[in-house]
């Protein structure tokens, strides 16, 4: 019961913060609400029993990505408010269709219930997680490390100020 209450609290916080991220005019305010939404999502992960995922969420998102956003905004220091010059009708359409679809599927789920499925019964502890990750998903894990290395190199090259003239 108490878990459900905590889940509902974090769910409402995450949703409200997410909406505020999208509607803010000032980019810095958006980033702060993004940090809020990310931390609330970490709370949702904790109530779902995915402690590892919650810790990763706090470390990587709140500690890494949000700080990266703030750094870029400060480095660029562009105090520009981009005008939203789309006419009203397309805007209403673009907002209403995804939100209505999400609400409809959520309503159907809550009304009809999610189909039952057999339990895998593998357990949810850290030990099981680590064993499954390094037994069944070793190749994707290593591929992800290669992806991160490529991202490191690529980001440095793209963000460099000028292309170095190479005489060769």
């Amino acid at each position, binding site marked *: 019961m108490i878990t459900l209450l905590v889940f509902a609290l974090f*769910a409402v916080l995450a949703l409200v913060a997410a909406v505020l991220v999208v509607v803010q005019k000032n*980019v810095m305010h958006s980033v702060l609400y993004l940090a809020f*939404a990310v931390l609330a999502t970490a709370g949702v992960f904790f109530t779902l*029993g995915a402690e590892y995922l919650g810790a990763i969420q706090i470390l990587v998102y709140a500690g890494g990505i949000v700080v990266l*956003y703030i750094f870029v*905004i400060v480095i660029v220091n562009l105090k520009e408010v981009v005008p939203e010059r*789309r006419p009203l009708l397309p805007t209403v359409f673009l907002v209403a269709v995804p939100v209505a679809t999400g609400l409809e599927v959520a309503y159907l789920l809550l009304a009809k219930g999610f189909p039952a499925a057999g339990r895998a019964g593998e357990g949810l502890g850290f030990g099981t997680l680590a064993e499954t990750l390094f037994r069944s998903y070793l190749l994707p894990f290593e591929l992800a490390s290669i992806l991160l290395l490529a991202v*490191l190199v690529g980001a440095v090259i793209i963000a460099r100020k000028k292309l170095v003239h190479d005489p060769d």
Partner: protein
Amino acid sequence: MIPIEAVISLGLLLFAVGFVGVVVRKNLVVMLMSLELLLNGANIILAGLGRRLGSPRGSIFALFVVMMAVSEAAVGFALILAYVRRKKSYDVDALDDLKG
């Protein structure tokens, strides 16, 4: 016990809000932030389903999604930096070099 329907609904709504942000906003940085929200919604559904099935695979898939999100954020920011240097603007409407 948290009903799985509530978890999936939360993930869906977060996904929808992020999608609206990507489609509607014209500010590049806010569009990237909305992408993060979208991936967060997917992660919530993965974590909830993993718990319902009693399997760590949900968390593992969500972990890979987080890795993708980090890569996307890093490369996206490099692109934004290069873009702002050229155009002096965050506005996606300034990206009309190929317009005939």
